[in-house]
């Protein structure tokens, strides 16, 4: 018996903001805090909380530095983060493939 794809979802990654952070970090290779905040439409505090969860789980690495006098925080995806993102996308596709035939059948 195969388990339902929903059982394979990681609670840390299966959350829209954290999935968004991982997606952007994957595509950008390296992304700055303010870009994430503006693109995802979050407050700085809210974004910091989500980054903390992802960093604790080892899915992202956070690097703090300066550009001139301006403090900047850069986020990069770890190998574990890359694998978690790929797994989440695969699980989502699997879920959709299961949902779509059920949605088209008469109720």
């Amino acid at each position, binding site marked *: 018996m195969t388990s339902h794809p929903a059982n394979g979802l990681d609670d840390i990654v299966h959350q829209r903001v954290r999935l*968004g952070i991982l997606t952007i970090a994957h*595509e950008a*290779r*390296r*992304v700055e805090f303010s870009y994430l905040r503006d693109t995802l*439409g979050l407050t700085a505090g809210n974004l910091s909380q989500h980054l903390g969860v992802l960093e604790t789980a080892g899915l992202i690495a956070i690097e703090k530095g300066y550009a001139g006098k301006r403090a900047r925080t850069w986020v990069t995806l770890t190998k574990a983060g890359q694998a978690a993102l790929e797994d989440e*996308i695969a699980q*989502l596709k699997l879920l959709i493939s299961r949902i779509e035939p059920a949605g088209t059948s008469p109720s």
Partner: protein
Amino acid sequence: MTSGAAFSGDDPRRLLSGTRELTRQVRKTQRATWFPLLVLALVTFAAIPFRYSPHRLGTCIATGPGRVCTAYPPALLVYWPTALVLAYVVIAAFYLRRSQARGVGTRVRPYVVAGIILALAMTGSLVWTLYHPLAFTLAGRVLLPALASYSFAIGLALVVLAWAERNGALLAVALGYLAVVLVAVNFGSVSGHRGLGFPVQLVTAGSVLLLGGIGFLLAQRPWRRAA
């Protein structure tokens, strides 16, 4: 600019379409396709005066009825690799500076590395052909001279940039440019070294790069984000 509204809800379909939208948005932020095209157009046009610099006779080989010799302008042979390496360094610096300003990493490294390797490899192959005058006549009068040209090397590197930027429009421009370079190899004089480019070939290739650069500049409108 925010895509927070587009990226909402826990429905798998919305989550997946949200990730696609974010991916598209990041790629749009990363792209600065107009800059390398305009720089390379400038490098191509700037090569034209060097074409009129004094020529030097290379190697001669005796064939049945006579002799086949190579002739080349040494200044152009120095100009191309120097200008291309400098251009790729400028392009890399531009992308890195832009990346810092916008807060998004850049994918320019494969392009810059490929561009520099191709420029140096092209120089090596051209120097080799100077000592082997029959190479082009034996291998074909059209295809090989086109493939062994700096203009073609620029086009190949642009294909790498299109892959790095996941940029379909740039891939179309790069392939179109390569086709133009292949066709334009027969334009102009039949004497001298084709790989270095004749003025009419350089004007043709440079014009394609210039038009492509202007097109991407208008499409990407970098001044709008900076405002």
